[in-house]
């Protein structure tokens, strides 16, 4: 019985302390001190106990009754606005609401989009299920050409394929609009690869395209350097070197100075001091012809980057598969 009363005191304290308003407090009072409360019933049942026990329990009941009354008083004081006074344990953790968060890929995309929007780019989207023309043919990937090797493709029964890059959005925009065009195309892409720590079969890319009269390689370089400085700070080293993409000519691979070792060489950059971040180049005239533009009239540049990769570099995530697993412990860290 005494144990039960002790436990009651604990429960009561907790509830008195957490009553959030007058009404709740009244409910708590009725529960613990009201006519039908356990304590009251215990007091009324005292008469049935043997004398020795009666004295002992009686004393405990009284004591607890007094304590509960004190809790009630404290709670009333608290609700009346007496916070900050004695009795408030300032070291107790506060009550936090739920706080949600966007997926790290979304946040990286937003960060990238934000930079490009400031540089005058608009966002364009396209379907995930594409056709051979938009994903390959118009981008100067001839059928049965080794250039397609890097693009392990998912094919859809009954025709079509899952886009292997966001570049088909370029084609769709150019087919429906006249220059000048300045877009970025962010989104999900698909490669038929067995996923491992650095390759997903689904991941995210961001593609950029600018077409106008007399767009030069220097402008491409300028926009990329500007973007990378916005992303990593003014002191970031940037290097363009020859690359190959069927839909750009000249093509460039864009490296940034390794953020881990600042160019000195480490395991992340395989001792080169550089990390490959973007592919870029001047739009190939064959692409312009495929969409009905005259390559003697307009020129343009295009670039593309892996969103997952940038997010991994920024956050230290070392396994790309984590992004689609959505372990809340993982999402809370980033």
């Amino acid at each position: 019985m005494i144990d039960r009363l002790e436990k009651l005191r604990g429960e009561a304290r907790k509830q008195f302390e957490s009553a959030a308003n007058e009404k709740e407090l009244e409910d708590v009072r009725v529960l613990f001190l009201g006519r039908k409360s356990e304590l009251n019933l215990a007091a009324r049942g005292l008469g049935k106990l043997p004398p020795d026990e009666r004295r002992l329990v009686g004393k405990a009941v009284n004591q607890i009754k007094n304590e509960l009354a004190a809790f009630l008083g404290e709670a009333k004081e608290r609700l009346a606005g007496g916070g900050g006074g004695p009795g408030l344990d300032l070291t107790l953790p506060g009550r936090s609401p739920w706080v949600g968060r966007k997926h790290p890929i979304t946040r990286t995309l937003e960060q990238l989009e934000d930079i490009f929007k400031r540089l005058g780019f608009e966002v364009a989207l396209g379907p995930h299920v594409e056709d051979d023309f938009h994903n390959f043919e118009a981008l100067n990937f001839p059928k049965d050409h080794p250039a397609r090797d890097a693009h392990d493709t998912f094919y859809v029964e009954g025709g079509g394929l899952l886009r292997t890059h966001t570049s088909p959005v370029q084609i769709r925009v150019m087919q429906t609009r006249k220059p000048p065009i300045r877009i970025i195309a962010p989104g999900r892409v698909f490669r038929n690869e067995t996923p491992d720590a650095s390759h997903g079969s689904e991941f995210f890319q961001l593609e950029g395209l600018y077409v106008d009269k007399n767009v030069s390689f220097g402008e491409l370089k300028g926009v990329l350097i500007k973007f990378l400085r916005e992303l990593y700070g003014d002191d970031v080293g940037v290097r363009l070197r020859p690359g190959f993409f069927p839909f750009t000519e000249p093509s460039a691979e864009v490296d940034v100075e390794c953020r881990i070792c600042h160019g000195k060489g480490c395991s992340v950059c395989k001792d080169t001091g550089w990390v490959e971040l973007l592919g870029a180049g001047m739009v190939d005239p064959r692409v312009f012809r495929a969409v009905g533009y005259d390559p003697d009239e307009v020129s343009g540049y295009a670039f593309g980057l892996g969103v997952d990769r940038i997010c991994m570099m920024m956050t230290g995530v070392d396994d790309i598969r984590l992004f689609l697993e959505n372990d809340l412990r993982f999402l809370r860290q980033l």
Partner: protein
Amino acid sequence: MKAGLKWLRDYVEIELSASELAERLTETLTETETTNLQSGGVSGVVAARIVTVEKHPDADKLSVCVVDWGDGSDTVVCGAPNVQAGMMCALALPGSTITGGRRISEATLRGLRSFGMLVSEVELGVGDDAAGIMDLGPDIELGADVIGFLGTNADTIDVDVQANRPDCMGVLGIAREVAAATGRGLKRPSFELAESAPETAGMIDVTIEDDHDCPRYIARVISGIKVGESPAWLRERLDSVGVRSINNIVDITNFVMLEYGQPVHAFDYDRIHDHAISVRRARSGEKLVTLDGEDRTLDQSHLLICDGAGPIALAGIMGGQTSEVTQTTSNVLLECAWFDPSVVRKGAQGLALRSDASQRFERGVDPLAMDEVAGRACALMSDLAGGTVRRGSVSVGSGSYEPVNIRLSVDKVRRMLEPNGTRGEESGPRLDAAAVSEHLEVLGFQTKVDPGDSDILVVAVPSWRPDVTESADLIEEIARSSGYDRVKALVPYQSLSPVRDEARDARGHIRDIMVRLGLFEIITSSFMAEGAGERAGVDGSVEAIVLANPVNKEMPLLRTSLMPGLLEVVRTNANASQKAIRVFEIGKVFRRDGKAIEEQWIMAGALWGLAERPSWGSSARAVDFYDAKGLIEALGRELKVDTLEASCYDSAILDEGASARLSAGGSPVGHVGTVSQRSAESWGIPDGVIVFELDMGALSTKYTAEGRYEDLPRYPASGRDLALVVDVGVAAGEILGEIRRCGGELLVDMSIFDVYAGKQLPAGKKSVGISLKYRSRERTLTDEEVDRSHELIVKRLTERFTATLRE
């Protein structure tokens, strides 16, 4: 493509180190690395000759060797099967270190003393052959430091050759790029070809079925060869690029392929039936055992080399066993041909057989080098295998090569690479015709100024550059050979006003709100298991899109619903002992509609577990239907969607009694409900998961991003509460709807503060506590005015729902 520095130096002077060269080529050609010898830590290993080999008296598998390393001679006990007298081997002397930091000391093996140890490639860290001790070949001096010897020999760069550069699939092509990048001249291979009668023409017959598949085929015959070991220089060159030496004939074909990038094939002339070669497509079901020992079944996509009896090789991919050169071969038929790139590529892909040869043919080999390549191979077979080269060749087909000439505007080059004027600023020395010519000519292009137009250079493209067909390609050559570093970066400027994508903005807006409401955004796979859609409540009539080649056979469909992915996230997180799950995804679902494929943006989410963040004062209440519904209502308020109405909703996965269809302005936008116990079991998720799905398309047309200002109320409001006792079947929504209809203009707000059913009420009744708020925009209302409005409502409600008022 690997290229040893020593080999490259056959064609171009190189003063750079391997890593400097790799860096230079990375700037001008493509990503290039050095392949490091894993010699770290290995020291004190010297070259020694095995003088004698005897069996160990007490151990079958051990030999006792006397070795001589110049400075000394001693006995070494060795367990390798390939040990033999006369062999030059690597001796790890006592006190030396081999890979893994292992120190070698004098040892006693089965009672006999061993002065050090003979080591394998693996123990030296220079290769992966662990089967026996390393044979260093005859070229090394006794006592020489083995690592030093191998290291200088094996200085190799590895060039990531792009799909459009067949020329760089040969060391000579890389040497050409090295020459251009370092300003040196290129020395082409030189050889003298001595031919003797009889004429090849009388010795072999070649026919081509379709000259599209094979525009040109050259056959040559070399007689009286002796198959044997290759000389050191040849083995060394092959070794430096990781190709194993087999015998002089095979090594020569590999060498020539690696030198020029043009594969050649050696057949045993005497094993060719009828001495007749035909190039034709395979018949369906035809078979060939290739050199790798595989029995391959072919179809019409494969191009074959056949003799009088049948297939003897897969054209451009791999030879067959029946005509293979062996130790006893004495006459060789050499094939040097041009096979159609896409035919080779399809054939190799179909057989999953990517060979060194197919990788070159599918890029398109140099159509004008074939005679030289065949001659080079013949000359080597004569020199190294003692063969007699028969006069002339049998050459069938005229080839498909057409010279490419491009008219290049120097002004266009400048505009692309050195712009000025409107956007650019003046930037350093201008490219002129002479500079442009120079950049191109070092790469083998020939240029001349058009006599009629001094701005135009007429550029002849070399035959080994099929990737260059128009001026943009030439501009790339100029840009890369001068280095992209030289191009001045221009500050971007803005001339366009970007257009908004409103549906996408709406999704972003909704995503923001969901996060504000305390949910984590998730992104799940677009793939889905067979039948998952139906199990997740998708209507059976929805046709999913099927992948022809899924990466995961279990997930062959594009998702028709976000629910399967969402429930999987719930499952894994609940299994990871999360106490609360609050997640949502905004993503695409896919369905087939006849020929068309529809992609639709959906939001789905789930709540499960604790309703409040656990804390010392919080309740341990679990979320229920109303938490999820309230969340969607809060979203609706934020989107300023007037009212979200709930009505009955049937779904395969939701609990019948706890699911609701949500509509806005009369059209459905989604649903919310508790996953039924049965579905929870089948998805492996805990009970009590509440899910919702909303159609982003429907929602995004209904929302308002900006609110509208109205005067703030200047007069106080008066509140009246009422507790209506009604049948339990009466829906709260009906009561509120009725109040809304009859409330009059003074009623400005209403809310339900209590719902009670229990002992204090008659069975079958419940009490609904409603708080009403009255206000006028013109004046302070009197009690009488408020009472009048209130009583009117009370009267309507008691009549309509045969309700009574509770005390």
